[in-house]
C-alpha cells in the first residue's frame, strides 16, 4: 500500500465506530510485509574466510519493487541482500561503508523523493518495513544475521566488498554479481569461437613485443580504409581478470544497441543526465567491431572515458592478450558525417597514463610495460581520427597486466620492455 492510499484510508477512519477505528489505525501503521523470496537468491554467491561465511545476492529492478513495494531502481537505490554466519568465537561487525561509502539508510531508502505533504513535519517518516529488512550490523559468535543494505544503483555486474571487523582482525570479501536487466555487450560474445580453427598463439617475450609493435597503429572504419584513434593499450589477462579489474576500478559495462538503450541514450543526451551504460559506436580491428567496451561517466553523457578492447589470438605466459583504445571524451560537437560526436582530449597519452593510475590505485594492476607501435604525432603535427578530431601522441602503447584479486599499489611491477616515454617527453 503506498503512502497516499494509506493517508486516504487514515482520513476515512475518522467517521467510523470506535472499534473499527482501532482496527484500521493498526492497518495504517506500516507493518513489515513478508519478504518476497524471488529468484535473486538463486543467483546468490557464498564465500568463507576466517570462520566467517558470507552469502550475497542482488535483486533486480522488478524483484526489488516486489520486495519493498517501491521502484527502488528508479530512485537510484539497489538493495543488496547479505547473510553473515559467524562461526568464530568473537563478535564481529559488518561495515556498510565498505560495501558502498554512500549507502542509504533504511528511512532514507523508504522516503526518497517525498511529496510536499510528507515534507510537513506531521507525517511520520518511520518505516518499519525497510528498517526490519535491514541487515543488523553486529553478529555474535555462532549467530547468523541476514538482511538488506541499500546501496547506490549499479546495473550490469554489481561489484562490492564485504568487510567484517573482528576484535583484532578484518576479513574482506569481494563479490561480482551479474544482475539481470541490462543487455551487456560481452554477454553475446562467443569467446571460444572468435578465431575458429586456430590454436592460440603462445609467444615468447621478444615475439610478443615484435608483433604488438608491428601491428596496425589505429582502429579503422568498417571497410578498413581509414585510420581512427590510436590503439594505445595492450592488456594481458583472461576475461574474468579483465572484468573484475575494470569493474573494481569503477568502469561500467556497455549495453548493446537496442530500442531501450537508444531511448535511454536520447533522454540522457537531451536532458544532460547520466546514462552510465550507453552503447558506444563501433570501431574496427581484425575486421570486427570491439568485443568489449567499458566506460566511466563523469558528470553527464558528454564527459566520460571510453575504452574498447579486442581479444587477439595471442597468449603470453598462458594469458590472453588484448588490443585496446582509450579516449577521454571532453564534450560533444557537431559533424557533417555523424551529426554529433564526442570530442576527445587530443592528448591521448594523458588518458593512457590516467588508466595506468586508475587501475593501480584500484588495486587491479599487477605490472606494466611500454612498447612502440602507434607512431609519434607531435602536438604541432597532430593526426586525425575517423570523425576528424585531432590527437597527438608520443607513439607508445602501454601493456597492462590486470589482476582479479587486489594488488597493493606498492607491489606493482614495471617491466623494462622499452624505456618509459615519461623519461623522454620531458619538457
Amino acid at each position, binding site marked *: 500500500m503506498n503512502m497516499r492510499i494509506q493517508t*486516504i484510508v487514515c482520513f476515512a477512519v475518522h467517521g467510523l465506530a470506535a472499534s473499527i477505528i482501532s482496527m484500521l489505525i493498526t492497518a495504517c*501503521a506500516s507493518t513489515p510485509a513478508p519478504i518476497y523470496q524471488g529468484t535473486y537468491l538463486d543467483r546468490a554467491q557464498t564465500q568463507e574466510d576466517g570462520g566467517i561465511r558470507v552469502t550475497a545476492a542482488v535483486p533486480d529492478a522488478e524483484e526489488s519493487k516486489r520486495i519493498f513495494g517501491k521502484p527502488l531502481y528508479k*530512485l*537510484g537505490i539497489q538493495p543488496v541482500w547479505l547473510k553473515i554466519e559467524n562461526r568464530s568465537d568473537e563478535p564481529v*561487525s559488518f*561495515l*556498510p*561503508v*565498505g560495501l558502498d*561509502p*554512500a549507502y542509504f*539508510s*533504511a*528511512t*532514507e531508502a523508504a*522516503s*526518497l*523523493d*517525498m*511529496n*510536499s505533504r*510528507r*515534507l510537513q*513535519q*506531521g507525517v*511520520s*517518516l*518511520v518505516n*518499519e518495513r525497510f*528498517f526490519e529488512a535491514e541487515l543488523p*550490523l*553486529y553478529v555474535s559468535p555462532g549467530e547468523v544475521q541476514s538482511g538488506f543494505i541499500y546501496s547506490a544503483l549499479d546495473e550490469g555486474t554489481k561489484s562490492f566488498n564485504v568487510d567484517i571487523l573482528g576484535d*583484532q*582482525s578484518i576479513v574482506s570479501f569481494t563479490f561480482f554479481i551479474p544482475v539481470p536487466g541490462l543487455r551487456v555487450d560481452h554477454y553475446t560474445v562467443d569467446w571460444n569461437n572468435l578465431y575458429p580453427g586456430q590454436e592460440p598463439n603462445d609467444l615468447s617475450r621478444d615475439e610478443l613485443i615484435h608483433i604488438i609493435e608491428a601491428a596496425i597503429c589505429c582502429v579503422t572504419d568498417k571497410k578498413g580504409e581509414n585510420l581512427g584513434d590510436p590503439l594505445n593499450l595492450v592488456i594481458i589477462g583472461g576475461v574474468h581478470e579483465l572484468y573484475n579489474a575494470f569493474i573494481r576500478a569503477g568502469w561500467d559495462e556497455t549495453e548493446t544497441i537496442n530500442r531501450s538503450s537508444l531511448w535511454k541514450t536520447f533522454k540522457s543526451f*537531451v*536532458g*544532460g543526465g547520466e546514462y552510465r551504460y550507453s552503447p558506444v559506436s563501433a570501431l574496427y580491428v581484425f575486421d570486427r567491431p570491439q568485443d568489449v567496451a567499458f566506460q566511466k561517466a563523469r558528470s553527464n553523457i558528454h*564527459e566520460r572515458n571510453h575504452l574498447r578492447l579486442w581479444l587477439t589470438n595471442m597468449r603470453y605466459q598462458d594469458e590472453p592478450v588484448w588490443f585496446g583504445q582509450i579516449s*577521454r571524451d*571532453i*564534450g560533444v560537437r557537431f559533424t557533417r558525417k555523424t551529426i554529433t560526436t564526442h*570530442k576527445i*582530449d*587530443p*592528448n591521448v597519452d*594523458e*588518458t593512457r*597514463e*590516467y588508466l595506468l*593510475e*586508475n587501475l*593501480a*590505485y584500484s588495486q587491479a594492476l599487477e605490472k606494466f610495460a611500454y612498447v612502440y607501435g602507434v607512431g609519434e604525432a607531435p*602536438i604541432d603535427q597532430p593526426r586525425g581520427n575517423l570523425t576528424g578530431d585531432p590527437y597527438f601522441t608520443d607513439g607508445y602503447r602501454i601493456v597492462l597486466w590486470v589482476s582479479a584479486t587486489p594488488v597493493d599499489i606498492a607491489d606493482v611491477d*614495471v617491466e623494462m620492455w622499452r624505456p*618509459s616515454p*615519461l*623519461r623522454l*617527453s*620531458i619538457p
Partner: protein
Amino acid sequence: MRSEPAINPLRRFDLTRQFLQLAAAFVLLSACATQPFQYDSALSSAVKGRAITETTGEVTVSTSVPGEEETTSIFGVPMYERGIQPVWIEVVNNSDDFLRLALSSIDREYFSPIEVAYLHRKGFSKSARAEMERRFYDSAMPRSIPAGESRSGYVFTHANPGTKSFNVDLYSNANDYSFAFFVTVPGFIPDHQAVSFKDLYSEEEFRNYDLTGFRTALSEQQWFTKSKSGQPGLPVSVVIVANGLDTLKALLRAGWYEQPDTRDLVDAQTAHYMFGRLPDASFRTRRDDKSERNELYVWQTPLRVNGEVVWMGRIVHFIGQRNQIRQVLFGARIDPNVDEGRNYFMQNIWYSQSLEQLAWLEMSDPVPIDEPARDFNDTEYFTDGYLAVAWLSGEPVSLIETTRVDWDSQPHRK
C-alpha cells in the same frame, strides 16, 4: 479517490529544466564567439609565494591553491563555477632517481588540462580557443621529474569548499613517497575561524579526567541539544577527543567539508544549542551526485581527558530528495533514526584512517522505532541510546591499529 495532479511538481521541474536548457542553448548559439582570451600570469607568482612545503629524504614538494578570484584571473575563465579547482604543485627531485608523480593521488578523477579549456570554450573566438588550450596544456603539472631537477604546474581537481586536503604520491624505482597536505584557500572563511576558542571557558571551568573519570563524567548526564529557551532537542550521539587541528585534519581526510559562518542567518527559534551557544564548527559530506548526506555540528566542551580536548558532535542525516536541486526546491527532512548518522560517522572516520581509539557507552533507555519521540521542533526520532566516543588522529592510522576502550559493547539489534 482523488487522482494524481495532471503534472506532479517533480515532473514539472524536469520540464522546466529541459526548457531552460533549450533556452540556454539558443542564447549561447546566438552569442558572438569573438571574445579574446585574457589572463594574468603575474598573479600566479602570488599563489606560488604562499606555498607550503614538505620534504621527505631528497624529495621536496610545495603546493598552493588559488582561490576563486585568483583562479579566474590566472586562467581567464571562472573555473570554480564549473566545480574545478586548480592546485599548484612543485616537486624538487634531489635524488639520483627519476620520479613519477601520480596525478590520481591528488584527485582520483582529476580533469585533464585540455578538457578544462574545452569546457570553457563558449564565447571565445577560434584563435582564443587555440590559445587557451595551449596555455592550459603548458601550465599543467607534468608526471615526470628527472633526477636532480624540479618541475611545477597545475593539477585540475574537483572543487570543494574550505581547506583543501589531498595527497601527493611519487614513485621511483627504489622508493615511494607520499605527502599529505591541508591547504587554506583564500576567499573562504570557515565558521570555526570566527570562534575564539581560548575564550570559551575560564580556567576554573575546565575539568580534566583520566579515562575512568571521563567515563563517569560522560555517564552523569544525558547529552541533548537544547532550544534557545532550554527545551530538549535531539540526543548527541558522538563525542570527539582530539585537539582542534587534529580534529580538523581527521575530518578533512574523511571527506567532511568546512562551512562558511552563517550564525547571523540562523533562525534562533528552531536552532539547536549546547552550552548556551550555536555550534563552534559545522561540516558536510556529500554524495558524488551532490545530494547532501550528512551535516556535523561540533561544540567544544569544558571536559578534558588526559589533557586532550573533548567535543560534542551532533550528526544530522538529511533524507527525502535524491539531489541537491530537489532539496532546495522541495526541502528535506531529518532521518528519524538518529543513530544512523552516528554509525555512518564512525565507519567513515575509521575507513579514512582517522580513528585512533573508540569506545561505546550505553547512556539511556532506547527510544524504540514504534514509539518515536519528538524534539522542540516536533522532529521525530528514535535511538538505541548509545554514545560513540572517537579519539581522532591527525596522522593516518591503519585500519587494524584502531584500539578499543573496554566500556560497553557496541549497540546491536536483536
